[in-house]
């Protein structure tokens, strides 16, 4: 068959489609407008402006965030100018009359000490310029944790009751946003603390067992004992290192390898390990100590309580823009409910950090990148997770 392609027809048809689409779009837009009353529209636009401001306030109270949020706050208040101060000084001045910017911190002094809103009239705010619109100021406190961390001052030609009310309400809203920002930071700090905790949480069983195994070689095979001790030293150095929260998969697997050498000294032929690693994923960055706890879990819970030989398989595969890492054992398994409890953090059973790894993966990459555990009693366990090869803000240095 020979396709016939008549260019002018195609152009006309495409043009007509585009026009039709544009027409429908415009009609739809017009109709949507028509459903809104004026009050609704004002409400929505205020909410929209507030959402724009809240995006900047998520960084906390800094000169950058204050000046970025300032213009939206000014739009909501309808005042002439807005000043944001913290306890040390002025953070931002938005609007005309910035020759008053130097005095703004002093204007807010009363609110800062008392925590109550203050209204200053033209008796306090004087200006040599007769055209200057800044004649009155309303200051409201910005609170975080019940303490005054800053002030919001609205300047206008006169201090109306409406402005005072609006400033007070807006300051309360900003305070709530600052609390949310503080909550986010607290969560990050908690996560960091948890990471530090995991770092120190090389299980005592492992140290005891490794040293025991090494001791048993000291006389019979001193050379091997020496090698094992060196592996042990390297392992602890990695596990206790100070540095960024990310490392490459190659580094992480090298540490898993040290760990397995030590475990094999103890279990001997009972522990069989296979590694299936696609070389393409070795440079991928993963959270530090993300794989080792899974392997330790497989060895301890999958094999230690089982008779005979146990196999652990570690797989790292390339899946386009993601890498998948999974740890498989043919041990005793567990009931899905108990695993669920461990991942939810409800169980204090010695699960060697499964829940922690899960939480950190979710925090860094989002909820769809958590641990996936496939297990049943007597059926072995497979724990796997995926990491994107690139995620903003994730780099190992």
């Amino acid at each position, binding site marked *: 068959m020979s396709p016939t392609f008549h260019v002018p027809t195609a152009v006309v048809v495409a043009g007509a489609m585009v026009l039709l689409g544009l027409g429908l779009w415009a009609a739809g837009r017009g109709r949507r407008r028509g459903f809104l009353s004026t009050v609704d529209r004002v409400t929505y636009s205020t909410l929209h402006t507030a959402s724009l401001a809240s995006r900047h306030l998520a960084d906390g109270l800094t000169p950058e965030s204050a000046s970025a949020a300032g213009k939206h706050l000014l739009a909501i208040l309808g005042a002439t100018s807005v000043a944001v101060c913290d306890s040390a000084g002025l953070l931002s001045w938005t609007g005309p009359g910035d020759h008053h910017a130097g005095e703004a911190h002093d204007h807010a002094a009363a609110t800062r000490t008392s925590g109550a809103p203050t209204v200053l009239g033209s008796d306090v705010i004087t200006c040599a310029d007769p055209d200057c619109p800044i004649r009155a100021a309303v200051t409201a406190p910005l609170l975080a944790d019940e303490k005054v961390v800053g002030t919001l001052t609205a300047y206008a030609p006169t201090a109306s009751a409406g402005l005072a009310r609006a400033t007070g309400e807006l300051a309360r809203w900003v305070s709530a946003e600052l609390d949310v920002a503080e909550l986010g930071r607290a969560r990050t700090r908690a996560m960091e603390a948890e990471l530090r905790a995991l770092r120190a949480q090389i299980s005592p069983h492992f140290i005891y067992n490794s040293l025991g195994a090494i001791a048993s070689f000291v006389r019979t095979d001193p050379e091997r004992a020496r090698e094992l001790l060196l592996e042990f030293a390297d392992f602890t150095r990695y596990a206790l290192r100070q540095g960024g929260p990310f490392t490459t998969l*190659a580094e992480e697997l090298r540490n898993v*390898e040290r760990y397995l050498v030590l475990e094999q000294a103890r279990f001997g032929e009972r522990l*069989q390990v*296979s590694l*299936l690693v*696609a070389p393409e994923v070795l440079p991928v960055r993963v959270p530090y100590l993300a794989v080792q706890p899974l392997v330790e879990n497989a060895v301890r819970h999958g094999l230690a309580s089982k008779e005979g030989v146990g196999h652990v398989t570690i797989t790292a595969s390339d899946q386009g823009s993601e890498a998948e890492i999974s740890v498989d054992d043919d041990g005793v398994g567990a009931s899905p409910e108990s695993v669920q409890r461990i991942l939810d953090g409800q169980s204090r059973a010695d699960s060697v950090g499964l829940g922690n790894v899960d939480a950190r993966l979710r925090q860094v990459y989002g909820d*769809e990148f958590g641990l996936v555990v496939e297990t049943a009693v007597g059926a072995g366990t497979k724990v796997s997770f995926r990491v994107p090869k690139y995620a*903003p803000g*994730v780099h190992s240095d």
Partner: protein
Amino acid sequence: MSDTLSVLAVALVCVTTVVVGGLGLRLSRRTSDFYVAGRTVSPRLNASAISGEYLSAASFLGVAGLIYDQGVDLLWLPVGYTLGYLVLLVMVAAPMRRSGAYTLPDFAEARLGSVLVRRLAAVLVVAIGWMYLVPQFQGAALALALVTGAPQWVGSLLVAVVVAVAVGAGGMRSITFVQAMQYWIKLTCLAVPAFVLLALWMRSGGGVPTVREGWWEPFAARSPDDHPYYRTFSMMLALCLGTMGLPHVLVRFYTNPDGVAARRTTVSVVALLGVFYLWPPVYAVLGRLHLPSLPEGVRSDTIVIQLPGRVVDGVGGDVLTAMLAGGAFAALLSTASGLAMSVTGVLHQEFLRPRLARLTGGDAFGFGGFRLAAVGAVVVPFVVARFVEQIGIATTVGFAFSLAAATFAPLLILGVWWRRLSRAGAVAGLIFGSVASTAAAVTTYFGGPLGGWGEALLANPAAWCTPLAFASAVVVSLATPGSVPRDTGRLMVRLHTPERVHLARSRVPD
């Protein structure tokens, strides 16, 4: 006889691709001899893989065909294809690797922290990928139809299916091994018949082809309206700067463990490409000698495959033809699968996953979406390749390079070397570059012959589109200093500091 052998060769290449792709991961080891460091992809292996992926049908069939058709003037083409890697080496290879970006949209986001730039880059990656895939499918149709007499659509469909299966089945598990192998297949399949043909030529006492005037000149005008110097300059610029913007090239650099390995890889790539490009001119010159004129309706792209059958009689000729057909298919498959992989990744990550996640209520993880994206990545160019009139393989590839040079080259070069690039500037560069070069391509393709300088400018747009994109990016960046990302300084330090230098973690005292 020739048919059977060729079909066998093509089938062999297809099966090897799928099998090695699927089984490469099985090269497993026990802990006792497992050392991760020894298993990272060495620069040389990675260079073979990059070359394997890069040498497409345009190189295997197109270059020889163009030289045959238009003279040694077109030797600039392989020069440019190789030179692109030199520019990549000098300008972006190592900093790019240090940025940690896996795809071009990733780099855009890492450098500028802007979702808009990321989206634009994603759209352009898909556009360039599809533009580059269309001639691959057309080349497949051509090669298979020529050696087996199969209808045109069979070859395209075969490549489309093999690529979709290979990508969708598991993202080509060991793509580096597959692509590295493809390079050596291609080189063997092109060089061995060339040696045989050259030996026969020597034995028959040489002989110089009779060609039209100007065939031997490096800057020959093809028509009174042709501007050979401008055309060559523009083409070289497109190839030099376009290479870094090809989606499937950058992805492979991610496999390097660090910036130094990235540079070493690039040097090896230049050498490997240089060796490969020795051979297409041999086919072009011998083609002129043995096939002074092609029958009506036969495209010059077929010269490589036709030549052995014309020179060597009997089984020998059939074997050589089969080798070349297999090599051409290897070229098509490796480039097409690399491109399809990149396009699939971007389609899935940028467009499909967010939508699927919304549709299924955040429950859309797994591999289904990726497979869907793989099908989409292959079907669109397949359909376009079927219903768009065939133009020369190298011409379409040339437009893909022009588009890449006018969009990603400014983003990458300014992004790596200029601290004052702002978000607005990057957006301006991408939009100006893409609109200008797309408009030029569309006018050339659909519009009639314009004649004169207008036609020359539109047929080779890189020489004005690329400076336009650079200029708009710079001017807009200077005009909008407010949208320069705040942590640019820190990022620049990370991009340009060699890995062996450990930056002191100093803290400014509070």
